[in-house]
């Protein structure tokens, strides 16, 4: 039984790895650190997710996609539980996820979100030309999780995934 349970758990994590963020389709919900835990008990699966931002419109869609993907793989009793605490932080993003963001043209979060650090001006690297000579255009970019920067060297504007 324990063995079976472990096989199920492993399979579920693999399925979850295939689910991407609806707004940034290059990174998975695992890369983002949204999935906090998975419980399996007989035929019942419970997935614990934590929202990135309180009003993130992608969360309902992510929940639906998790449910659909698990159903398609034969897990019929799926419960998705939103967990608010501990609050999601960009520190939970995987290194692989940060690398994928960069390739996609979004500067990944710099440093850790602890203390007040994320309120200071940061040296954000341009994902295009890697120059650190960049400036903040707007604290809020195309979505709540991003800020808008511009590179002073190649002049390209780009999104920065804010530390949170």
């Amino acid at each position, binding site marked *: 039984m324990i063995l079976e349970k472990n096989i199920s758990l492993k399979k579920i994590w693999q399925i979850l790895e295939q689910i991407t963020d609806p707004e940034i389709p290059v990174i998975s919900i695992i890369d983002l650190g949204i999935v906090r835990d998975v419980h399996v008990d007989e035929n019942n699966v419970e997935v614990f997710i934590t*929202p990135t*931002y*309180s*009003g993130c419109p992608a969360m309902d869609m992510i929940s639906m996609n998790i449910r659909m993907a698990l159903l398609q793989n034969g897990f019929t009793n799926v419960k998705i539980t939103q967990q*608010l*605490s501990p609050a*999601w932080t960009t520190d939970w993003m995987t290194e692989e996820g940060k690398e994928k963001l960069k390739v996609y043209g979004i500067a990944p979060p710099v440093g850790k979100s602890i203390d007040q650090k994320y309120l200071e001006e940061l040296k954000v690297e341009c994902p295009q030309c890697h120059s650190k000579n960049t400036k903040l255009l*707007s604290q*809020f970019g195309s979505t709540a999780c991003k800020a808008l920067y511009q590179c002073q060297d190649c002049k390209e504007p780009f999104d920065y995934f804010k530390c949170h």
Partner: protein
Amino acid sequence: MSENHINISTNQPFNYCLHLADNSLIMGHRLSEWTGHGPMLEQDIAISNIALDLIGQSRNFYQYAAQLKGEGTTEDSLAYLREANEFKNILLVELPNGDWAKTILKLFFFSTYQYYLYQKLINSSDKQLSAIAEKSLKEVTYHLRWSSEWVIRLGDGTEESNKRIKNALDELWAYTGEMFLPSTYETEYAENNIGVDVSSIKIDWDKKVNEIFEEATLPSPNGEGLGVRSFGKEGNHTQHLQAILKDMQYLQRAYPGCEW
């Protein structure tokens, strides 16, 4: 003393939770009115994002309140099917947006308030309130930073922008006092260590406001700002709330339970 001695107070912070939810919902709704009308695309996007954060926070509080109430209550029934006198938001958030300066100053006062309130609410003995506060505080920190920068920019900007933000101050200051005057349920839950004693955050709030005003070359606001007759937290609202609800609740009232 009183004839209606119905004490609905249990240890469950239903009213307190509604108050926090209503503050965020109405402020978020007001800010969302700027969507498509911001002075610049970046600012339009910024204020819409802040609106979304606040509406998201209100959802978390409404969901919890609905859970406490039970009996088929949902976040939607709380947001869409209550009358104006059942809303517990402070009057400040329901005031019309006015111009950009007034909107910014209102958001700055409110974000500063939320910033210090949530810092304390994290220590609530109620785990869910603490969790929502922890989540919301991260967002509010950005709101505070953004609105502070705008207050400085407008105050220390042109003659026109300075005049506008001073006008905004004249119009809004009287409404700030309500934030620190506890309602009956706030007092009750502060005593139980579930809620926050709002009078205790006034010092920090004043300090922050003065610090930003100084940088904005604005005069330090005087007085307690208690000139409000009505008390939104207890359900006494201006006619502006009626107008918001008429707009916001139209669909659910015209087509009860509708979905798409």
